[in-house]
C-alpha cells in the first residue's frame, strides 16, 4: 500500500495536476453556488475537456469540481436558503438561521472548516479502508436498503420540534407522493401524470428544492415584510459578523466532526446512498446525541446542526468513490457521471483497478486531500466577499433569488411547464410554512422515494410477497430495531416531558 500511496502522491503532486485541482475547486464553487447547476452538471460539462488529458488528470479535475460544487452549494444554502446541491439542503437548516442572526461569516467559516475536516478524515478512512469496505458494501441487499430508508425517514423526528411529529409525517408522505409521479422505473407505466407529457419523467429534485426552499423563502419574506416579528430578522440579514470561531464553538465542532465524518463516509460507501442521505442522517443523529439545551438551538442556528451535515456531505463525497473505484457501482448521481467518464477513458473500475491502474486509484485518493486543502485556502479568504450577498437590499435580493430559482429550472429543461409547476409548489409550500409545516421531511422523502420503492419491490419479489424479509436477515432486523427504538424513545420523551410539565 505504501508503494501505492507514493505512486498516488507522485501523480497528484505534479504541477499540472495541482493546477487541475485548483481550477476544479474554483470552478466547482462558482457552479455549486448557482441554484440548479449542481456538481452533476459541472462534471458533465467537464467531461469533454477532460478527454484532452490522461485519465488520472481528468479524474483529478472532476474530483476538484465535485468538492468545489458541494462547498459552493453550502454557501448559497447558508446565505440565501437556496441549496445549490441536494447534499447541502440540511446545511440550510441551521446555516440560514445563523446568517439571519448576523453571523453569516461565522456560518460560512464553520461550513468551510467542517467540510475540510470531514473531507480530510474521510480521505484517511478511504486510504486505509477502501479495499475492505468494498466487501462490506457488497453485503448490503435490498431489504437492508429498504430498512435504511425507513431509518432515514425516522430522522424526521429530529426535524420536527415538539408537537410537530404528525405534521412532519404528513410532509414525508407528501414528499413520497411527489416522488411517485411519472414513469414506474420497472414497467414504464405512467402514474399520476393525468396524460400530461411534461410529467412523464417525474418531477425534478432541483425543482422541488428550489420551490420549497428558495422561492417559498423569497415569497415568505415579502409576505411577512410588515410583520413586526420578522422585521428584526430582516435587518440583521445585512450583517456579516465575525468569521472567527470562538473556543466554545470549536469545542462543539471537535465532538461533532469525528462522528459525522464516520456516518458520512459509511453512508457514502453504500452504493446509491450519497451525500444527501448522509447529511440528513448526520443532522438527525447530532440532534439526538447533544444535550437538551443544545437540542433547543437546532433549526435556530446551532453550531452542531451546521457542522454535522457539512462534515457528513464532504465525507460522503469521498466515501462514494469507494463503490465506484472498487466495484464499478456509483455511490451517487455525480459519481455515476464520473464512472461514465472513466469508462470513456477506457479504464474499467473494479476490484482489479489497484493492480491494473494503481496510479489512477491512488492519485485520486491523494488528490482528494490536496483538493480539501486548496478548497480551504481558496474559500476562507473569500468569505467576507461572498457574504456581501447579504448586504444586497431586499428589493433587489428577492427578485434575484426568484431569478436564480426560475433560471435554474429553465436551464435544466427549457420547458415553461416546469416554471409553472415550481410556482405552484412554491405557493403551497409558502402557505404550509405559515402554519409551521416543516419542509425538510418533504425533501428527504422526495429523495428517498424512488430508492425506497425500488428496494421494497425487489425485497417483496424475492420473498414472494411475504413481509418476512424485514426480519429474515440480521442486518435488516437490526436497522429496523434501531428505527423502532428511536420512535419509541421520541414518543416516550414527548409524553414524559408533557407529564412533567
Amino acid at each position, binding site marked *: 500500500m505504501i508503494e501505492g500511496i507514493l505512486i498516488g502522491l507522485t501523480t497528484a503532486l505534479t504541477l499540472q495536476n495541482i493546477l487541475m485541482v485548483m481550477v476544479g475547486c474554483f470552478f466547482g464553487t462558482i457552479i455549486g453556488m448557482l441554484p440548479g447547476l449542481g456538481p452533476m452538471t459541472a462534471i458533465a460539462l467537464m467531461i469533454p475537456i477532460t478527454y484532452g488529458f490522461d485519465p488520472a488528470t481528468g479524474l483529478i479535475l472532476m474530483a476538484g469540481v465535485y468538492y468545489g460544487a458541494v462547498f459552493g452549494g453550502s454557501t448559497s444554502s447558508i446565505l440565501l436558503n437556496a441549496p445549490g446541491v441536494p447534499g447541502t439542503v440540511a446545511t440550510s437548516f441551521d446555516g440560514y438561521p445563523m446568517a439571519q442572526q448576523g453571523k453569516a461569516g461565522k456560518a460560512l467559516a464553520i461550513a468551510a472548516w467542517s467540510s475540510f475536516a470531514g473531507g480530510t478524515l474521510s480521505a484517511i478512512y478511504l486510504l486505509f479502508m477502501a479495499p475492505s469496505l468494498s466487501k462490506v458494501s457488497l453485503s448490503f441487499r435490498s431489504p437492508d436498503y429498504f430498512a435504511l430508508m425507513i431509518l432515514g425517514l425516522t430522522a424526521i423526528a429530529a426535524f420536527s420540534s415538539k408537537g410537530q411529529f404528525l405534521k412532519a409525517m404528513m410532509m414525508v408522505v407528501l414528499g413520497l407522493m411527489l416522488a411517485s409521479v411519472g414513469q414506474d422505473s420497472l414497467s414504464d407505466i405512467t402514474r399520476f401524470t393525468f396524460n400530461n407529457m411534461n410529467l412523464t419523467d417525474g418531477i425534478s429534485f432541483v425543482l422541488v428544492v428550489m420551490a420549497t426552499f428558495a422561492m417559498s423563502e423569497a415569497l415568505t419574506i*415579502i409576505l411577512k415584510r410588515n410583520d413586526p416579528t420578522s422585521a428584526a430578522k430582516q435587518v440583521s440579514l445585512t450583517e456579516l459578523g465575525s468569521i472567527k470561531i470562538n473556543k466554545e464553538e470549536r469545542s462543539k465542532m471537535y465532538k461533532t466532526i469525528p462522528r459525522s465524518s464516520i456516518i458520512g463516509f459509511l453512508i457514502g460507501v453504500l452504493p446509491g446512498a450519497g451525500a444527501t442521505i448522509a447529511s440528513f442522517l448526520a443532522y438527525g443523529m447530532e440532534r439526538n446525541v447533544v444535550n437538551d439545551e443544545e437540542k433547543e438551538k437546532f433549526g435556530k442556528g446551532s453550531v452542531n446542526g451546521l457542522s454535522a451535515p457539512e462534515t457528513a456531505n464532504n465525507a460522503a463525497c469521498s466515501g462514494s468513490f469507494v463503490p465506484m473505484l472498487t466495484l464499478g457501482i456509483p455511490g451517487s448521481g455525480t459519481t455515476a457521471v464520473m464512472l461514465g467518464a472513466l469508462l470513456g477513458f477506457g479504464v474499467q473500475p473494479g476490484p482489479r483497478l489497484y493492480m491494473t491502474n494503481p496510479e489512477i486509484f491512488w492519485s485520486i485518493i491523494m488528490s482528494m486531500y490536496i483538493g480539501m486543502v486548496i478548497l480551504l485556502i481558496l474559500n476562507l479568504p473569500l468569505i467576507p466577499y461572498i457574504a456581501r450577498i447579504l448586504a444586497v437590499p431586499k428589493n433587489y435580493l428577492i427578485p434575484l433569488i426568484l431569478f436564480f430559482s426560475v433560471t435554474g429550472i429553465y436551464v435544466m429543461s427549457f420547458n415553461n411547464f416546469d416554471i409553472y409547476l415550481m410556482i405552484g409548489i412554491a405557493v403551497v409550500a409558502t402557505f404550509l410554512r405559515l402554519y409551521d409545516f416543516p419542509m425538510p421531511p418533504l425533501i428527504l422523502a422526495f429523495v428517498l422515494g424512488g430508492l425506497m420503492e425500488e428496494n421494497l419491490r425487489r425485497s417483496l419479489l424475492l420473498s414472494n410477497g411475504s413481509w418476512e424479509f424485514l426480519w429474515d436477515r440480521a442486518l435488516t432486523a437490526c436497522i429496523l430495531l434501531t428505527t423502532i427504538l428511536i420512535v419509541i424513545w421520541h414518543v416516550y420523551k414527548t409524553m414524559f416531558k408533557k407529564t412533567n410539565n
Partner: protein
Amino acid sequence: MNINTTKIISLLFFIFSAFYLYTAYQIQVFAFDENAPFNARTFPIYLGYAGLFFSGLKVVLPEPNTIKVDHKNLEYKKTGILIVIAIIYGATILKVGYFLTTSLFLFSSYYFLGERRWVLMFLLSFPFVAAFMYLLHGILDIYLRDPFLQSIGVMG
C-alpha cells in the same frame, strides 16, 4: 374539537390522500402483473393509506400549540403580484426569449417591490442578465433559445 387552520389543512390533506389513493387504484398495470406481489400501483396505494392515516390523526387529535397567523400584517398584494409576474415570465420565455423576458421580469419585480432607483434597476436587470447569459451560453456552452436576440441579429 377546536377547528383551526392547521386542522383545515390536515382535512384538505386527508381529501387529497383519498383522491391520490383512488387514482393509485386506477393505475393500469399489465395483465401478467395484476396479481404480482409488487406492481406499479402497490407503493402508491401504501402511500395513500399512510396519508389518510397521518392526516386523519392530525384532524382528530387535540392540537398542542395552535399557530396563529396575523393576516392583517401579511403583504398578500405584493406577493400576489410577484407570483403573477413569475407566471407571465413562464408564459412568454419560449416565445420572446431568455434575455428580454428575464430582464423585464427582474426590472418589474424591483419596481413592484418599491424600488425607484432607475439606473440601478436597469443595471441589475438588462446588463446583469446579458452577463449571466454570456456565462451560460458563451462560457458553459448551455444553449439558450432566444427569438428576440435572433430577430435583431445579436444571436445566430
